[in-house]
């Protein structure tokens, strides 16, 4: 797939960000460096007409004014990120006039990008997905839209069915790994409490299902992510949903044990193999370890089974094919530098790079590197 580029100047914390998106792209950087703004802007670039359509459908009216549009889209108070005359955006080499986007409705209303936001835990209330209109008008569009998608998914595609394990959505291998590393002996199903439908975790040994409030933090984070993946893996012969080509997932690691993160990464590989272009933002060094592994296994023409070893995944025909496909994809890693307000392409993931942001993988391995250095010095100089 041809790489797409997004160049952002003077938007919020971002002074100058040049992003190139491969088949799999990972964004790293400290808090409040503009990663979330960048991926929300990406959604706007890819799906401007669909965003306008959805916002209009749910009664949002920004009077054709950009500041109001920004508040409605990015969230209340965000209009200050836009600096008139200074903010410039180039999408795939072409200057984009956001004021024009706010003023005129676009004809193309197709949805090409599915966004799984960092605040996905908010998508469920008492164990049931919240509709778009359940949120405050000042809440970010990405959260409201994701929540609405889950509501439609659960109401229309899972009436009375078990959501996990779910043979029509996930490969058997994934189901077994999720049982092993996330759900234990629990299943996820629709239940009713005083006529109110809700998702509960049920145990094979019977008894009442566990309602949302007693789920672990990891399960609360994981269930919306799983449902988001279900949305992208329709139970039909068509491997992709509608016209969606892009998937953005913010901080997929939230609340998850490293073993569960490994399974989620394999599910990301499944999305890649289905043809989606995936963008992740993360604070997890494990995800960059995975990117670094992919890079070196690809460059050294390693066998797909080696990749499965890394993820402790079964070496079935299906999984080997998946690993082979993922190893053929291209990848990019960008670092958002807080001090400079810019981004750097650190796709080489070279631990020996001269520049600290590159060698420390955008700060994600800095602590380990410093810890190694401190221990090495202490051991080398003991008994002097």
């Amino acid at each position: 797939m041809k790489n797409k580029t997004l160049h952002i100047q003077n938007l919020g914390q971002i002074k100058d960000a040049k992003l190139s998106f491969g088949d799999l792209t990972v964004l790293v950087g400290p808090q409040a460096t503009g990663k979330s703004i960048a991926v929300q802007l990406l959604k706007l670039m890819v799906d401007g007409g669909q965003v306008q359509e959805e916002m209009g459908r749910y009664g949002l009216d920004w009077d054709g004014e950009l500041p109001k549009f920004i508040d409605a889209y990015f969230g209340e108070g965000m209009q200050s990120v836009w600096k008139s005359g200074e903010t410039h955006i180039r999408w795939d080499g072409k200057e984009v006039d956001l004021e024009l986007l706010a003023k005129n409705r676009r004809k193309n209303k197709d949805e090409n990008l599915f966004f799984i936001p960092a605040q996905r835990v908010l998508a469920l209330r008492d164990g049931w997905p919240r509709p778009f209109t359940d949120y405050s008008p000042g809440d970010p569009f990405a959260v409201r839209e994701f929540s609405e998608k889950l509501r439609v998914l659960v109401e229309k595609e899972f009436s009375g069915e078990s959501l996990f394990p779910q043979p029509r959505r996930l490969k058997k291998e994934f189901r077994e790994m999720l049982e092993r590393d996330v759900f234990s002996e629990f299943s996820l199903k629709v239940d009713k409490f005083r006529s109110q439908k809700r998702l509960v975790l049920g145990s094979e040994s019977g008894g009442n299902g566990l309602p949302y409030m007693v789920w672990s933090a990891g399960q609360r984070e994981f269930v919306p992510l799983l449902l988001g993946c279900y949305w992208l893996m329709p139970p039909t012969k068509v491997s992709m949903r509608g016209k969606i080509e892009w998937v953005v997932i913010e901080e997929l690691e939230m609340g998850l044990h490293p073993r569960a993160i490994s399974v989620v990464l394999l599910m990301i590989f499944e999305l890649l193999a289905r043809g989606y272009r995936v963008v992740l933002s993360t604070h997890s060094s494990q995800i960059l370890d995975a990117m670094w592994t992919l890079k070196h296994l690809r460059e050294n023409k390693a066998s797909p089974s080696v990749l499965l070893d890394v993820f402790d995944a079964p070496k079935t025909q299906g999984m080997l094919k998946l690993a082979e496909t993922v190893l053929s994809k291209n990848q990019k890693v960008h670092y958002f530098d807080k001090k400079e307000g810019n981004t750097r392409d650190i796709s080489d993931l070279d631990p020996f790079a001269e520049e600290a942001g590159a060698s420390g993988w955008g700060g994600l391995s800095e602590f380990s590197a410093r810890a190694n250095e401190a221990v090495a010095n202490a051991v080398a100089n003991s008994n002097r």
Partner: protein
Amino acid sequence: MSFKKAVTETHLLENAFEKGLGALRPEDKPHIQTEDTRKLSGSVDIDKAYTAEEPNANRWDFAIGYRHSNRRTDFIYWVELHTASDSQVKVVIKKAQWLLNWFKGHGHRLAMFEREIVWVSSGSTHLTPSSSQKKQMAQTGLKQVGGTLNIKNNR
């Protein structure tokens, strides 16, 4: 005591001291970059000096003395120039263990100096900072740098 004096008073190193980076093989010298070559206190080829006495041991390569601007005494960089590959990690760890043992015996004079034990690895390495191999190296007192050891005046 200076680096030179400590070398010349060490078993089997009596005649091994060389000025600057003189103890290193010509092909190894480009892997050591110093901010000021005049601050080099000398070098010694440990591996060569101990070949006859310990032919089968995992002997360490070199020691390089440097007088840092912010140090009163010589600082010693214990340098192993070794090809990088994951399978070589254990070999270099064994060499570092040999060195640490040697400090307790014949190398006790040189062990008095502040030091870094550095694996200058040529070729590509495949160890992340969070990997257990990196932790094993750190626990042995070993640091790994890629390609070149850069020695600055201040440390």
